[in-house]
């Protein structure tokens, strides 16, 4: 087992080292695509970290992403960059903590609706504040951060998320969450502090999303609520995680990478029919792959091992 872990980590490190050289290719388009891939990989993985084991479907990705982006818009020119990122992470964690404590007692469709509303709530709060207090809507982010910097930060965050996810899955917290996902009542009877477990993981996942928003913000120069709180992000992340399979740590990547590439291909080749094709693909994913690509792999592997077993028996 430990040999396998060592092998995996060596492989992961090699991949990381290799990926770190992408900006050296010198093609801004591939760099932009790579940034996009990493962005959705981190977001979908962070989404899966909480929603996978607990089976709480969250549409709050945009809310946290936007909080991160707005923190940069407000503080980007005032504080040094590491402090800006720390502040963003802290803000994201605080918001997630408050939201988690007050809503994770909801379940099923109520939770979905609440998280969707949360994005709108935060967005309207920001608008209200900007209109009535600061009297500017639309802020400028002029910070000295290159596209390559954005890429490297995202890459580091990706590595951190996978490490974190792996550690959590092996910890008591991860086990508690899987029990909650199977049956919350049973989990309570087993003596698991379900509220603490859920809020803790919700906060971790939201902090990562907030950081992604903060890292991405310098790409746009200009930020206003409709740009930072674009609810499309929530839906895209959701569908990516579902396609990949949210019940595995590595599942969402299997959805994020092909879908980001597909979106890119579609918007380049079919700019005018993009949304129609996208809708059809979403339908197909939900109907054909209810457990995602990860689920498909598992099914295939059990089938092959099942066949071998039969053969051996015969």
């Amino acid at each position, binding site marked *: 087992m430990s040999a396998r872990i060592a092998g995996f980590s060596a492989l992961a490190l090699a991949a990381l080292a290799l990926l770190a050289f992408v900006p050296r290719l010198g093609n*801004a388009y591939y760099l932009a695509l790579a940034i996009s891939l990493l962005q959705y990989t981190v977001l979908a993985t962070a989404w899966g970290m909480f929603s996978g084991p607990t089976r709480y479907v969250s549409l709050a990705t945009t809310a946290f992403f936007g909080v991160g982006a707005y923190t940069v818009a407000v503080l980007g020119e005032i504080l040094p960059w590491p402090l800006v990122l720390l502040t963003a992470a802290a803000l994201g964690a605080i918001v997630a903590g408050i939201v988690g404590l007050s809503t994770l007692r909801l379940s099923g469709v109520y939770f979905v609706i609440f998280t969707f509303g949360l994005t709108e709530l935060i967005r309207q709060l920001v608008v209200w504040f900007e209109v*009535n207090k600061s009297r500017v809507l639309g802020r400028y982010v002029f910070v000295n951060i290159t596209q390559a910097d954005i890429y490297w930060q995202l890459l580091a965050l990706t590595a951190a998320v996978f490490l974190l996810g792996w550690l959590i899955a092996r910890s008591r917290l991860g086990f508690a969450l899987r029990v909650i996902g199977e049956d919350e009542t049973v989990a309570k009877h087993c003596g698991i502090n379900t509220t603490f477990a859920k809020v803790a993981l919700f906060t971790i996942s939201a902090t990562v999303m907030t950081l992604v928003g903060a890292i991405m913000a310098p790409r*746009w*120069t*200009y930020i*206003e609520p409709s740009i930072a709180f674009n609810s499309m992000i929530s839906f895209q992340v959701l569908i990516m995680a579902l396609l990949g399979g949210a019940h595995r740590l590595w599942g969402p990547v299997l959805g994020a990478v092909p879908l980001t590439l597909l979106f*890119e291909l579609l*918007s380049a080749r079919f700019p005018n029919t993009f949304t129609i094709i996208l809708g059809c693909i979403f339908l197909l994913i939900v109907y054909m792959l209810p457990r995602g690509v990860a689920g498909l792999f598992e099914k295939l592997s059990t089938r092959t091992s099942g066949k071998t077993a039969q053969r051996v028996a015969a």
Partner: protein
Amino acid sequence: MTTFLTRRAALLAAATCAATIGLTAIAEAQTSIKIGYAISRTGPNTGGAAVTTIPNYELWVKEVNAAGGIKLGDKRVPIEVVQYDDRSNAEEAVRALERLINQDKVDFILPPWGTGLNLAVGPTLNREGYPHLAATAVTDRAPELAKRWPNSFWLLGTSADAAKSLVELLSKLRDEKKIGDTVAMVSIADGFGIDLSGAARPALTNAKFKLAYDKTYPIGTQDLAPIVNEIKALNPDVFIAFSYPPDTLALTEQSRIAGLNPKVFYTGVGTAFPLYKQKFGKNTEGVMGIGGWSGDSPAIKDYLARHKASAANGAEPDRWASAVTYASLQMLQQAIERVGKVDRAAVIKDLQTGTFDTVIGKVKLENNMPTRYWWVGQWQDGEFYGVAPAGNEGARKAIVPKPAWVAP
């Protein structure tokens, strides 16, 4: 055999035509100028892009190619267009531009629609050294942006300027004893409304106007009747709304119903749209709004006719940013032709220093911005004429007081 050849030639010509109209021809080195743009065909920016930007891009490409193309040295080369949908999304707009530059290797790029997206693509265009002719962005940081990105040109001015012109016009009207000094102002709680009201508030107070009403309403407000009724009760001399197209229409309609008919009736974005005239017909008479153009100038009249002939369903341009957008394309063409080759640095230099002959008259930029803008227009006899700043060539006298509303 000859017929066969001509037929083949005709087929070839038709195919080329179809390709340019379909806007996705395949590259052939040095025989064309490749122009790329990403524009909002879906999402919240669609309306603005469809009225102001897309018809002008298409009209210009059609006209230039019909004339044989852009003149490079002593030969003319046709324009070839590559276009994408930015889905009204900043991230998508940036990526589409990076694709245009690195994958499609376009020679020039036309900007997206709206302030936010123009600001979002600014750094990319600056880094890659493409001229950026922002014809649909109004921002107070324009002078600073022009310094930061010397390749960017901010052709629609600043909101502070817009508010200043409006207040100057009102002061003049008050000096002529045409209006009193009570002003009611409403603004939309979004970028445009906040900027404009933020600039107008101190300007009005400094000019000793009484601001009897000053409120904002959220974007997407459906029922504006309470606002209009409250204002009517105050009986102001001047009504100012820094509004977006849907609420510009709603406020006008509501004012007509409630009989709010102050001496000066001013509404925001959308007043200059052809849709406004279609909807209110005779009732547009005397309504003021942001924008305007010299409706009497032969160049504008000719542009209006060509635009109507070219656009789908004979759509008319709006009377503010449309003509500026078209003028920006003429400027780009003239700069390229003067340079004589695809040398973007030289084209930027020419745009900064040259004088251009356009539908909005002679344009010479100073610090990457024009020196004259139309800030207040007024519907007079079915045309939206520029009335302020009064010093502009072709400025009409404002009709004050505004005539009473008539039953539709």
